[in-house]
């Protein structure tokens, strides 16, 4: 049979029609999926009983309660705890990602001893007994040589039983060098101590819930300032109530976008704006008479200083704002009907900031009677529940001893700890004043500004003990690691000192069994103390950490285990401490590092809820939410105004070289209309090192580019930015 064109086509079409009528195409699509999907490496999550357990988040100082969903013994999801005073069921991206810390690759799986050079990341596992014996021996050697003062400790927070166990250990041994990571909370404490003549653990508490007008000097109200979830919730309540919120900043941050009211002040001129407003208030006699009179002091001198140095024209020239606009803002702020509240601490407040700014803003509140009053700022005592019997030898051992960082005495009498001063002290001529350093829940090598100097300083410390649960920049430089449980595997009390008015103590609980060979750092400190024998062991009369916690919390312990937190609902902040000392003179604003001629731009760090710049690095889920206008590939993206970019010959989305007095980095440039001309914004929280591929070696640590600046009053790091240049690469 001859196959002609006609029969060929008929056959072809017939076959096609016939196939279409059979289930073959559908069977094939089904089979394609089956063939391409049955991979043995694809996990099938195991089933089990579903339970919810209560815990507390420790990833930032915000103090959220968490509700942990477990399937069998696995933690599959972290949610917000409904009914918790801070977050009431809400939760941030970082908090949700806590499971990725618990099960992640950065966990340290057993005690380890350094086996290579410092920073080489070579370790050999050792037993807990050996690790504790080794640390104890090192401490003993130091004490026997009479160098107990060279024993130092750095912790993330200064309150709660865990940090205080460290503080106690040091004190009993005779060292006053207990240091903590600084933040704006320390600047606020210093301001309150100085201006209210108070001492002890005082914090600023902000009564946002009852305020009628918020004036924020660069504070990221919805970007992680204070207690992030409380702030986001409250800011939304205020917005619903049509409470006006004004953001003073150099760029349209998420907070400025949220408040829809931006006062674009020149970089570093926030304090001058506050003082300019104060000058208008005093000149127009709008201040609160009882707040400036009575037991307050120094008002006449303060008023004279304002009149002399902060005339409308002078302030207008410095801030770049119209004097009428400043006067209008001042009148609105001073109006008693508005129940105003001014706050400061830039971004998330992770950098302490300058005392000029904090004093100016606090004085502005005081001037119109917004201190220690409803809807204003309160001087609140930190929750005081730790009443350990004081050993007389313990206090005697450190009485009169000067700390390495010189905090708490002389010029820096108002500050507890000045970690930022440590690197220079270590790098000074001679031996390192720190002979043995204990680090717990802190990552100073990453978080301190001036990274290069900090690295050198830490390398000079003879012996570093890290208690970190995860491998971080500081732990990488340690000699021995005694890994802590993660916060989902351990007990820990967490007094929340993040701008709350009512006292709150959270309790982290072991919601998961320990995944690795780790121990609660509280237990380890007690074990070390016991190994050091009398008199040190006598100061630690507890069997273990849980015993210490139960005895310390007393009546609160059982209810806290049940509920996850303790708060005093009925607490009404006292009207005490209304006496206010107005400053007759203010310290100078921090000078920006770098030559103005060659570096015409100002580099400012930006912080957000999606990129965390603290001791805890972004976890994979959070990093995935980071937009490509912050991080592109392995390169950090910096923001400039299109006009600035064009004048420098830069192109949107292209590479450029960013240079400051401290260093330089290749960056990608993005043009953004919402930033002031002449300003470059760089995201904080990148530039981590280590072996975690998802975060390591991406972008640059802002601490590499922005040098620290020591505040003359507090001694804290007051640098808010630096001069910079941006050149086409």
């Amino acid at each position: 049979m001859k196959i002609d064109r006609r029969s060929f086509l008929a056959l072809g079409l017939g076959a096609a029609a016939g196939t279409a009528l059979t289930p073959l195409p559908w069977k094939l699509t089904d089979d394609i999926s089956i063939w391409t999907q049955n991979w043995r490496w694809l996990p099938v999550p195991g089933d089990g009983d579903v339970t919810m357990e209560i815990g507390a988040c420790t990833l930032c100082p915000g103090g959220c309660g968490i509700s942990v969903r477990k399937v069998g013994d696995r933690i599959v999801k972290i949610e917000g705890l409904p009914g918790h005073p801070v977050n009431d069921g809400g939760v941030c991206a970082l908090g949700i990602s806590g499971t990725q810390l618990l099960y992640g690759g950065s966990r340290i799986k057993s005690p380890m001893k350094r086996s290579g050079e410092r920073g080489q990341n070579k370790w050999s596992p050792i037993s807990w007994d050996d690790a504790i014996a080794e640390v104890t021996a090192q401490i003993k050697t130091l004490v026997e040589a009479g160098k107990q003062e060279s024993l130092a400790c750095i912790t993330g927070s200064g309150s709660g039983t865990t940090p205080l166990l460290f503080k106690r250990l040091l004190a009993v041994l005779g060292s006053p060098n207990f240091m903590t990571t600084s933040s704006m909370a320390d600047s606020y404490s210093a301001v309150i101590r100085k201006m209210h003549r108070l001492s002890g653990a005082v914090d600023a508490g902000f009564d946002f819930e009852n305020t009628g007008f918020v004036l924020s000097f660069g504070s990221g109200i919805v970007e992680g300032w204070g207690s992030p979830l409380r702030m986001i919730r409250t800011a939304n309540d205020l917005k619903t109530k049509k409470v006006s919120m004004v953001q003073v900043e150099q760029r349209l941050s998420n907070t400025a976008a949220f408040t829809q009211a931006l006062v674009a002040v020149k970089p570093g001129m926030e304090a001058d704006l506050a003082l300019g407003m104060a000058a208008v208030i005093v000149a127009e006699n709008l201040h609160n008479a009882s707040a400036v009179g009575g037991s307050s002091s120094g008002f006449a001198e303060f008023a004279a200083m304002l009149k002399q140095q902060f005339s409308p024209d002078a302030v207008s020239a410095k801030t770049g704002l119209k004097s009428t606009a400043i006067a209008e803002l001042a009148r609105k702020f001073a109006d008693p009907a508005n129940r105003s509240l001014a706050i400061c601490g830039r971004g998330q407040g992770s950098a302490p900031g300058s005392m000029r700014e904090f004093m100016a803003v606090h004085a502005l509140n005081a001037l119109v009677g917004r201190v220690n009053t409803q809807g204003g700022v309160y001087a609140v005592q930190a929750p005081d529940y730790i009443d350990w019997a004081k050993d007389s030898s313990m206090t005697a051992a450190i009485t009169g001893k000067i700390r390495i960082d010189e905090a708490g005495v002389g010029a820096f009498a108002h500050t507890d700890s000045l970690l930022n001063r440590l690197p220079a002290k270590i790098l000074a001529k001679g031996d390192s004043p720190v002979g043995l350093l204990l680090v717990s829940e802190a990552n100073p090598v990453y978080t301190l500004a001036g990274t290069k100097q900090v690295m050198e300083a830490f390398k000079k410390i003879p012996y570093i003990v890290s208690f970190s649960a995860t491998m971080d920049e500081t732990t990488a430089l340690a000699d021995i690691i005694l890994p802590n449980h993660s916060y989902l595997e351990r007990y820990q009390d967490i007094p929340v000192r993040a701008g709350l008015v009512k006292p709150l103590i959270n309790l982290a609980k072991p919601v998961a069994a320990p995944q690795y060979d780790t121990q609660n750092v509280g237990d380890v400190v007690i074990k070390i103390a016991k190994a050091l024998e009398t008199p040190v062991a006598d100061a630690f009369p507890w069997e273990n950490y849980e015993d210490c916690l139960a005895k310390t919390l007393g009546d609160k312990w059982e209810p806290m285990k049940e509920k996850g937190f303790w708060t005093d609902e009925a607490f009404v902040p006292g009207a005490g401490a209304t006496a206010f000392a107005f400053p007759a003179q203010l310290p100078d604003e921090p000078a920006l590092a770098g030559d103005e001629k060659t570096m015409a731009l100002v580099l400012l760090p930006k912080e957000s809820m999606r990129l965390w710049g603290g001791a805890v690095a972004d976890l994979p889920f959070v990093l995935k939410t980071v937009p490509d206008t912050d991080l592109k590939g392995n390169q950090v993206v910096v923001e400039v105004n299109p006009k600035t970019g064009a004048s420098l010959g830069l192109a949107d989305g292209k590479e450029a070289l960013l240079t400051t007095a401290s260093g330089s980095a290749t960056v990608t440039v993005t043009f953004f209309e919402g930033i002031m001309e002449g300003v470059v914004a760089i995201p904080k929280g990148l530039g981590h090192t280590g072996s975690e591929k998802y975060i390591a070696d991406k972008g640059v640590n802002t601490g590499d580019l922005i040098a620290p600046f020591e505040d003359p009053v507090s001694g804290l790091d007051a640098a808010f930015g630096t001069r910079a240049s941006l050149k086409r690469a």
Partner: protein
Amino acid sequence: MEKETEHKPGKKYGMVIDLDKCTGCGSCMAACMAENNVPCKDDESNKLTSITWIRVYRLTNKKPFPETEICYLPKPCMHCGGVGDQGHSPCVSVCPATATDYDHGTGIVSQIYTRCFGCRYCMAACPYHARFFNWWDPIWPADLKKSLSPNVSPRMRGVVEKCSFCFHRYQLAMEKAYVEGRRDLEEVEYQTACTQACPSGAITFGDLNNPDHAVATMKDDPNAFRLLERLQTNPKVYYISSREWVRRAGDNYLKNEPTNSKPRVTAHHG
């Protein structure tokens, strides 16, 4: 006596997102990833291949500083009902494998991974970029496999995935209700992970057909709008913004065309 048959409209789950409340914090994105076993790659900065069932977009009014404004817009799958809400969603209409379907009982557009063979017609058809393709096998390094939820199957290389309005939560809630002898759910019993996590309370979720649910009244807010509404895709995600420029950003308008003008498309083929 003959019992009178009660005619109730079917459930139609939807979302109202108040953009005035959204702070752009990204909680919804992370909550969604944790709830739905969404994996992470080492580099997620290429947003074309980054899988985020709900993604927060940044809109700007493009005015020069300091008049610039930003609005954050979280965008999950719109669960389109199509013209006349008959279930002809753009993606459902094109799927050759019936891997995505419109559930008339809930109004949810499903995605059945084991049926999908990765042709990606649905991605091309979706006007909202709500669908994502697995170009690689998912990897959970270290012990991260332990954090996987058994309620959602992990997806494999070669399939499309998207927001399901946390359908597994609906199933669990319905199972519980059936055991308790009920056929209906309270509003709080079925909420998506993003709604629950949002610290701002910007996301409201519920049955658009049930007058007792908040979304039913919120969707009629004078400032409510939907994305590309004039395509007649009939999305079940509504947005509220007090700002005119934001509402206009929800669709492609000519320069002088008024917002909420008549749809250009009145019927679709197929």
